Structure formats: C-alpha cells, structure tokens
C-alpha cells in the first residue's frame, strides 16, 4: 500500500495523430493541494476530462487508494470519490441554493411510492454547509443567480464535498473572479484540504496557485515539465516555466525597444 490517495502514472492521450497528453504523472496525498499550471492549449482540459472519467487514457494507469482502476464514465470517477468541478459549475441560476445543492441527489422522505423531496431537511443542510464555509446564505430558497461568482464556486465545491468527494478536481476556480472573491475561494480550498481532501487545482494563474499549493506540476504542450515541491521552486521560476512566462519576458523586451525607438 502506498500512502498516496490517488496516483496518475504516465498518462497519455491521443486524438488521432495529435498527442494531447504524454507521460503526465501526478501523485497526491491526503490533505495535499497540487496545482496544475499551464497556458492555453497546454492540455489542461484533456487532463481534466481524463481525471473526471470523460476520456479514457490511452497509456498509463490510475491508482486510487492503492487499487488500479479504470474509469469508464464520469460516474465511475465520482463513485471512486474523484469529483470534478467544471468552470460552468453545473449550477442553475434560476433555481434556489437548496435546489441546486441537491440537484440530482435530492433527500427524500415518506413511504415508498409516495416519497417527496424533503425540502426542510435540504434547506437545513444547505444553509449549514454554506455557513461552515463562512458564506451566509441569507435564505437558502434565494436563487443562485443572486449569489456572487465566488459564492457560486464555493457552493459547487461544498456540494462536491458533501456528496463524498475525496479528491477534488477544480477547473479554473478563480479565473472569472476579482481579487477578493478569488481569495475567498482559495481560502475555502485550503480549508477543504486541511480536512483531509486531496485537491487538484487547475489554473493558469500562478499568483493564485502559489500561496495555496503544496506542489506544482507545469504542463506545456501536453507534456509535464515536472512536479516541484513548494520549497524547491519560486513563483518567478514557475511563471517563466509556463510558456506564458517566456512570452511575457519577450514582450517586455520588445516593448522597451519600441519605447526606445519612439523616444528617438
């Protein structure tokens, strides 16, 4: 038995002639936050879908709690405790917080054949759970549309945890958020990890990833550029490792030259 909660070993995924992912390896322990960094087109989406069970890897193995497994569908991954929160969050903005929280998995009460949706219980749990994150849902029957982006993100994560996630895969949870909102979400992610969840945080924002991550995997053009412990790598190094880093350096140089030539 290894002490890793999940291991993704040498995952490769091909679409016809295109190599979308090649030999990507990620190992996570309980309570660990691994940040997966990469620019657009680095293969992040393909990797997420592989983790979530949408794609089946063409090479490599997935080991959950010491057991080698194959995900045939997103449901398989979910049953193994790997929950993916996509960017669209799977929330319906016209529906209430409670109805969203329990969407597809409603608590029921009553005798067989006359079972009804236990709204009282659902309201209580939803308000309780949101309260734990420090989001005061002023009224669990209010529409999700009235919540801020950060609150919605937290709702989606909280829902995944409530329904038994051991590994959280978060797809760009802070990309659409302002500074304050992003910090609320990041704080919540750290809190979730401290309760024993493993978190894979997918982002292109190093500034959001660096403070919360324990380890960092950089993805570039479908290949992993390696996994680094936080103590082994600086924020600047991470930035420049992402393709965007180099580009930005180049851009800076170019802009300086432009300034110089226009000044002359």
């Amino acid at each position, binding site marked *: 038995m290894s002490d890793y909660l999940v291991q993704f070993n040498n995952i490769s995924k091909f679409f016809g002639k295109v190599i979308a992912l090649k030999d990507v390896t990620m190992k996570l322990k309980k309570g660990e936050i691994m940040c997966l960094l990469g620019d657009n087109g680095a293969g992040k989406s393909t990797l997420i879908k592989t983790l979530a069970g949408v794609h089946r890897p063409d090479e490599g193995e997935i080991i959950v709690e010491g057991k080698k497994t194959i995900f045939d569908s997103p449901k398989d991954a979910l049953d193994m405790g790997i929950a993916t929160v996509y960017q669209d969050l799977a929330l319906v903005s016209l529906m209430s917080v409670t109805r969203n929280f329990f*969407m597809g998995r409603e608590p029921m009460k009553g005798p067989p054949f006359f079972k009804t949706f236990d709204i009282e219980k659902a309201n209580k749990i939803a308000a309780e759970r949101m309260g734990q994150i420090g989001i005061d849902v002023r009224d669990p029957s209010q529409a999700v549309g009235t919540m801020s982006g950060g609150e919605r993100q937290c709702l989606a994560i909280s829902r995944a945890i409530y329904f038994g996630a051991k590994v959280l895969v978060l797809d760009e949870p802070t990309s659409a958020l302002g500074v304050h909102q992003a910090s609320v979400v990041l704080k919540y992610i750290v809190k979730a990890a401290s309760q024993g969840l493993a978190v894979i945080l997918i982002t292109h924002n190093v500034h959001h990833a660096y403070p919360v991550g324990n380890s960092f995997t950089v993805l570039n053009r479908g290949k992993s550029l390696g996994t680094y412990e936080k103590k082994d790598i600086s924020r600047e190094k991470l930035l420049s490792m992402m393709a965007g880093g180099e580009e930005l350096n180049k851009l800076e140089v170019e802009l300086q030259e432009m300034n110089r030539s226009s000044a002359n």
Partner: protein
Amino acid sequence: MSTKSKSIETKTDFNQDERLKKVSKLRLLLNRPELGALGGAILVFIFFGIVAGDTGMFSAYGVLNFLDVSANLGIIAIAAAMLMIGGEFDLSIGSMIGFAGICIAIPAIYWGWPLWMSIIFAFSMAVLVGYFNGILVVRTGLPSFIVTLAMLFILRGATLAITRLITGRTQVPGLRVLIEDDPLAWIFATDTFKWVFTWLGSMNLIALRTDGTPLATGIPPSVIWFIALAIITTWILMKTRYGNWIFASGGDKNGANNVGVPVGRVKISLFIGTAVAATIFATIQVLDAGSADTMRGTLKELEAIAAAVVGGCLLTGGYGSAIGAAFGALIFGTVSMGIFYTDVDTDWFKVFLGAMMLIAVIFNNYIRRKVTESK
C-alpha cells in the same frame, strides 16, 4: 397549495443571520412566478364585476360557463407550462386534440369497439406521439419548436386524411348514445355535485328552467380535471424529486446532466404529458359534443402557450409554475366568455389576448432579471 409549500421553503429561520433582512410576506409573494397571473385574474374579475355585474355573467350558469371554457384551456395550459419549465415547446397540442378525437370516434363508430377501449386507444396513441416528439428533440438536439411544428402539420394532415379515407367525411357524429353504461366514459362526461345545484334550485337561489330543473346542472368534468391537474402538477413541481429535475432540465441542460439528472427522460416524459393533456381535452369535448371534428383544437397550442406565459413561465425554461398557467387560463376563459356580456364586439378578444401576453412577457423578463442579477 403552492403558497403553503413556499412558506415552508422560506419561512424557516436559519442561524438568525443579522444580514437577513426581515422580508415581508409581500416581498416573498413578489418572487413567485404566478403573481402576475393572479393579479391579472383579480383585475379581470373586478373589471367584469363592474361592467357586467348585473348581466348574469356571475349567475351560477354564467360562472360555470366561463369556468368550463377556462378549465378546458387550463388542462392543456398546465401541461404546456410543465414542458416550458422543462425547457421545451410543444406546438402539436392542437393537432393532437383533433387526432385524439378521431382516435376515439372512428374505432367506436366504424369498428364497433366499446367506447372505453377506444378511449384507452386514444391515450395510447398520445403516449406514442409524445414519446416520438420527445425522443426526436432529445436525440437530435433540434429545437422543439421546429420538431413539434412539423408534428403540428403531420398530425392534422393525418387526422384529415385518415378520417376522410375511412368515413368519407371530416366529422364523426353518433357518440352520445355510447356514453351511457360505459365503464370509462363517465370520468370524462359526468357533471358532479348535481345535488348542490338541485338544492340551490329548490331554494330558488339559482335560475330555473321552465320545467323546474336548475339551468346549471352540475360542475362540468373539465373543471374537476382542471383543478385536479393543477393540484397534482403543483405538488410535483414543489415537493418531488422529479419536480426539481424539471426545473434543472429547463434551467441548464448541461449542468443538470453533469450532476446526474436524467435530462432526456425528464423531457420525454413532459412531451408525453402535453400529448396526454391534449387527449384529456379531446375526450371531454368529444363526449360532450357527441362527435369528433378533424379541425378540433386548431390553434389551441398557441392559446395554451400564451396562458403558460401569462402564468409566469419563461420562454427559455427553468422558471414558472403550473398554478400560474391555471390562472392564465382562467383569465383567457373569463374574458372570452365575459366579453359576450359587455357591449364590446367579441372580435376584440384576440387583441386582448395578444396585449395580455405582451405585458406578461415584459413583466416576466423583468422578474427574471431581478431573480438572476448578481449583487
């Protein structure tokens, strides 16, 4: 019914949050989708109370008359509303009414089937048509507007062609004699609470015919069906898992799918619901008239959708209520009958219908912005 379950959802106090402003009952009510229709219905009654209060519109006979019209429309409007909340349209409701009518009449008159068997046959055909509509929309991903528009023409055309082929005409009369002693037909053809009206008549409280029997004989079956459907569908939407799935399927198809809601099955079942409601409408009318007409139900699908919209359903799905559609139908039914009691030319009814719908859409759009806007 709906206000009761709503109060359960909203009134419970959670951790006495100091930021939770005490919202008045009125504010809570304003957030309900059926509010507009309820207000509209009250206004309509006030208007006719003033304009036609002394004309007999509000006599027992008059009331039953506009209730009957409202109830018939309401039966299909409620089903249309459920489907709209689920995010789809059904334009084939009207054609389904005509089709269901001849599905009852032709087997009963020309093939010698007992009436109950032809009624069951009509409902089976409805399930098939609804399932076909649903599976086509779900599988192809085409807009239901187009798919059911095609079905509107196909069903109406088939109804005409088949009827003329078998009977040589476009109407099939002669059903009335079959209703008596039929084990099933009474569900769609019996006036209820007759004793109330007999008693009211004997007390001289309501108008009587010259032979001493009351002019209004009982509550028509359409009204009973209408009330029962309104209660059941509201209960489904507010209190069941399936109800939550309907809102979810209409609100965000992909999101609902991602969390395990069987969106396809939900939508198909709702399409079956509209076809079955059209058949209930058809059965009641065919048994009442004693004949099936191939053109029965023409344009009814648009009235049903209009009533659902007035009742607070969004055209984009995910929001609305069944009870709202019921009020919407009540408004249309009351105005369409009430206009006879005023001096206004009945031609103006359609103008009213259109204006009412336009106001409702603008109002609903505003409500949706209120509900979804970020703080």
